[in-house]
């Protein structure tokens, strides 16, 4: 019964990926074409990777740099804020948390016009800065909430021991809290990275060509001059795009799980 449920669940979740992979390896990638016509090819992948006019590799590089910088900067900022909220007696610190949550619920479309004007004024349109700054702000509330709840679970005795051992507040954060919370920090970085990596609207409005354009926008604009849709290229590009995320998850997975199963203070 459980096994049947698992199979159902997995097939439901993985069906789009299966479809993506199959289409990306097809010589004749038309919807609803009979399975008998299927011909295997790697042509789509090589064209996506090597055809310079598609700029796919540029998009991928832009995406990784922008999302990586935004995720790391966002989580670093969030961890300082989370440390303050979890540990210090601040008037209205819960207000800060709820304000961050409220801000994160704003629809993106409501600020994108202002953002465009601002970035034009700064002269950052079609540069990494145009995306990194909004992305940091965008991943901040989520990171703040995750880290605040995790930091609050770390016993306060650890801080007090560190203060007595001669740490300043910043050192308590960098030498004790952050290393102890490393699994949470890594998973938050990963989450923030995926968030930024998948972002579409800001990237669409604030970039104009392959110098800064990110993968989601790039793939969406793959369609040719005459409106034909190159499904093979699109699917191959999507498959390649999921790779960094999968690789990151696998790298971090061991540390995240090791951290989660380790006894914190008492046994």
């Amino acid at each position, binding site marked *: 019964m459980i096994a049947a449920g698992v199979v159902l669940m997995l097939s439901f979740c993985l069906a789009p990926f299966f479809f993506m992979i199959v289409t990306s390896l097809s010589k004749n990638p038309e919807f609803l074409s009979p399975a008998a016509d299927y011909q295997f090819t790697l042509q789509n992948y090589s064209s996506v990777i090597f055809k310079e006019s598609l700029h796919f590799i540029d998009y991928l590089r832009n995406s990784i740099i922008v999302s990586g910088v935004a995720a790391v900067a966002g989580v670093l900022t969030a961890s300082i804020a989370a440390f303050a909220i979890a540990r210090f007696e601040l008037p209205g610190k819960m207000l800060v948390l709820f304000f961050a949550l409220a801000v994160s619920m704003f629809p993106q479309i409501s600020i994108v016009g202002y953002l465009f004007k601002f970035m034009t004024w700064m002269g950052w349109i079609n540069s990494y800065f145009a995306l990194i700054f909004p992305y940091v702000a965008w991943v901040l509330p989520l990171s703040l909430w995750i880290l605040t709840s995790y930091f609050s679970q770390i016993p306060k005795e650890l801080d007090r021991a560190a*203060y007595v051992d*001669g*740490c300043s507040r910043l050192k308590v954060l960098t030498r004790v809290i952050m290393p102890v919370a490393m699994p949470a920090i890594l998973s938050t970085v990963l989450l923030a990275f995926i968030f930024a990596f998948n972002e579409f609207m800001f990237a669409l409005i604030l970039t104009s060509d392959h110098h800064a354009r990110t993968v989601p926008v790039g793939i969406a604009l793959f369609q040719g001059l005459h409106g034909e849709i190159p499904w093979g290229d699109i699917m191959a590009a999507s498959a390649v795009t999921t790779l960094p995320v999968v690789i990151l998850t696998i790298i971090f997975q061991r540390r995240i799980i090791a951290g989660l199963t380790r006894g914190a203070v008492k046994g």
Partner: protein
Amino acid sequence: MRLELVNLSKKFRSMRGEVEAVKNISLTVEEKEFFVLLGPSGCGKSTLLNLVAGLERPTSGEIRFDSDLVAATGRKIFRSPKERNVAMVFQNYALYPHLKVYDNIAFPLKIEKWDKSEIENAVKKAADILGIAGLLNDKPSELSGGQRQRVAIARAIVREPNIFLLDEPLSNLDAQLRMSMRTELKNLQRRLEITTLYVTHDQTEAMTLGDRVAILKEGEIEQIGTPLELYDKPRNIFVARFLGSSPINIFDAEITAEEDKIFIRIAGNRIELPHNRMEEVRGFKADKVIFGIRPEDVEPQSDAEGSPVAGEIQDIELLGRETLLHISVDDNTVRALSESSKWEIGQAVGIKFVMEKAHFFESE
């Protein structure tokens, strides 16, 4: 290093209002002294320790290390824990879970930026003293409770602190380990000659460890003295009740004077007071007093007839060498320690109070 607290107070503000955790406490811990703060939970003893460590700011008052002011609210002086060079051991050990034992012990030295070779020597020395040299490469999660506590103590002594602060360090250990660690801790303190402030709610720990003990209740000091002073001459019922492994007997009593004799009425029985206790009792304002006597000063006697007070054995607790009897006298229960174990439940017994050892307190 001598530690002096002057009129120290600490108030906490919370949603429910203001709580005064420490109320105007003054005390002095002499150099090399092992000083114990004893009290029930919520009496402010841990707050007091945090104030000395510099983890909390006093609301008012002064703290001096020798002649140095480390905190004075009047002159706006507040030194950080780092500047005070104190070391602290916590109830739940508070070892850094991400660091190996070696790095845990070395942590305070690394923060102070010692040389690598110096750190190594200091860590080795501390680990040898605590007998954990073989564990230096383990992570805290691989250690038992007793080993973790040793690591925590090693981390505390590694940099030769001015004052050694211990916050219920033994309460998470099992009974047997607690006893051996107690002895070891006492020896260690004697050997290192570090002024020590030790917080506990366990009266046995306080009695066995402390050169002097301060008993706290609701943020105030009830009494300060050597363990024996506190045990033999408690200033009030709270102190009397708090010390002693078998709790003291407490009764309402009434004093009556007849000619040159003084009698005391306890549970319907009249007992004459010996001469050397008369002065003390005469000083009381009211006739009603509270009479306290420790179980070891109550002598049960097998012939009920000839004794001043008679009762019946309700319950018997075997403690090994001694036997604790619960004897009902009218509506009261008297606890008595007896070296003999030839008692039976339901047996009628006489009771003799050793009046020389009795305690009298004014009733509230």
